[in-house]
């Protein structure tokens, strides 16, 4: 045995508010502490880890077309969960229910249960504006606003609270640093965001999402419009962000899912076929269809 492998001393104080991965808005964690219910022992969870998003018998329809059938899935907190599956399998639909973006699509309905930190996401009275502040989203195509870099990042915070100039400057810098783009744009914060390269625009969009202090980041094929180098930068960023955020990523790129994710869920024709540790999904999946898909036999 190596003597250096000393177990962590029990006297070391735990990191401050481990359940609230929000380094940008420190006053929020205080509020959450007041509001949060007493921590319950995770006895019922299948694994010892904390569950951020839980779907139970979750189904979804566009008009009369059923896009998702009885999905039951646990998404752990502060882990990367990848959704894979062929086009039209419902993975993006599922993702867009987590922040209720499907509300903007006429005829979109959902049934079953979907919770975030134990709170029902589907109830009619649910404040989607508040939900979307807690669940950030990064889209397939970089979509910065036709404003300056600074104003792009400051957009979200300005929606939700009045901040003085210094605090806002600080928040913008922290968000841009968080998205690993600060060094590239610090000298031209007031230049148009549209002048950035595709990869930079996508990292700016991530910074923009971080600036509102979310708990969860949804990424809908964030690299599919990017070149390999920008893709690598985003993947590196995901690995860093996951220390503080719960990340759900939809991807068509199997290698990407294998590289960045801790857990992988395989969707096929609106059904969840299998979800497990990423390594297991890619090495010895339980389902034949999963194996066929990840080995490239179809899809």
């Amino acid at each position, binding site marked *: 045995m190596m003597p250096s492998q000393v177990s962590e001393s029990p006297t070391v104080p735990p990191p401050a508010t481990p359940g609230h991965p929000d380094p940008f808005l420190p006053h929020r964690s205080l509020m959450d502490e007041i509001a949060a219910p007493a921590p319950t022992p995770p006895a019922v969870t299948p694994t010892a880890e904390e569950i951020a998003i839980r779907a139970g018998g979750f189904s979804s329809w566009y008009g009369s077309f059923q896009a998702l059938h009885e999905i039951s899935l646990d998404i752990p907190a502060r882990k990367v969960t990848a959704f894979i599956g062929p086009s039209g399998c419902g993975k993006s639909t599922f993702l867009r229910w987590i922040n209720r*973006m499907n509300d903007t699509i006429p005829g979109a309905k959902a049934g079953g249960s979907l919770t975030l930190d134990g709170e029902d996401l589907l109830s009619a009275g649910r404040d989607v504006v508040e939900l979307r502040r807690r669940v950030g989203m990064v889209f397939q195509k970089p*979509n910065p606003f036709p404003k300056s870099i600074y104003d792009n990042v400051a957009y979200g915070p300005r929606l939700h609270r009045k901040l003085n100039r210094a605090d806002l400057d600080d928040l913008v810098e922290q968000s841009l640093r968080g998205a690993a783009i600060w060094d590239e744009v610090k000298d031209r914060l007031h230049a*148009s965001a549209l002048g950035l390269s595709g990869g930079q625009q996508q990292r700016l969009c991530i910074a923009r999402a971080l600036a509102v202090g979310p708990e969860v980041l949804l990424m809908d094929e964030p690299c599919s419009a990017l070149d390999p180098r920008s893709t690598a930068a985003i993947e590196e960023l995901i690995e860093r962000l996951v220390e503080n955020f719960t990340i759900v990523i939809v991807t068509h790129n199997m290698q990407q899912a294998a590289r960045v994710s801790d857990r992988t869920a395989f969707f096929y024709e609106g059904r969840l076929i299998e979800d497990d540790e990423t390594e297991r999904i890619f090495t010895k999946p339980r389902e034949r269809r999963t194996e066929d898909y990840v080995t490239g036999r179809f899809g």
Partner: protein
Amino acid sequence: MTAIPAGIEIPRERRAWKARLFLATCLFATTLAVAMLAVLLASIATKGLPWIVDAEAFRASFAEGGNGLAGWRDWIRTEFFTEYASRKPLKAGIKAPLWGSVWVVTICALVALPVGVATAIYLEEFAGRTRLSRLIQTNIRNLAGVPSIVYGIIGLTAFARMFGVFGTGDDETLSIGDPDGFLYLMLPFGQSVLSGGLTLMLVILPVVIISSQEAFRAVPASLRQASLAMGATTWQTVWNITLPAALPTILTGTILAISRAIGEAAPLLVLGVPLFISNTPANLMDDFTVLPFQIFDWAKRPQADFQGLAAAAIVVLLVVLLSFNVVAVVIRQKLHRPLS
């Protein structure tokens, strides 16, 4: 390998010839339109300009020792702009209709723009694709095609007479404020500039709404989604993202609609707008007349001098129209300036 059937090959020369023929047809059509416009402008300018510009003084001004453009007071016939209508052509001017047109069009624009844009925002950003919104949509499209004289009748009923609820005689009107001051209001509006402006607003409103809707539709959905996904309300998204992106296009459409309003005569005719007025509007309730009326009155007279005056008034109308367009272009450039 795919087997390509042999068929009969189309000779290359024939295809090239067809291409040339098509190009020639398009060029011919373009030339025809431009040439007709040029002829029209030339004939109006030759007839009308002598009534606006004193040719001899103009030559003197631009000859050696003259003041050139700076001495415009010497060669512009200022009386054409400062005199009211007259039986004597040399003393006749367009002061009343020029100011009347400016007042009416300003009122029309100030009302049509917010109402039209707000309607477009409701239909595009809030209403969704319900049966009701489709019904409204269809009706607006139909209204855009209604002859303007029909709007004159609506204007007469709704604004000039207010359905007779305030009586029909002059004595029975309600009034607030001093009739000679700027702040004066009476009910019903009668044949005032406010009635005229609101009536023209009705004429152009459907066009403003439709062009604004097109402008909102042209804003990429990805921007809306990005804003909503960050927890913005629909209102915040419209105000911060969609409206700024759509505004340049909205203004272009609105200015085109307003250009139409400047030339309208029919609805104002129904409203009972008089031709001979010897004052300019001092408040919203004042009488007024407009340039198209004056142009028609002069153009129908047999004397050549009045024909010239009519052409001169048309030149002024075109210049007013052009300056509205310039204002629109400037505003658009300002709004659209790239982020430095």
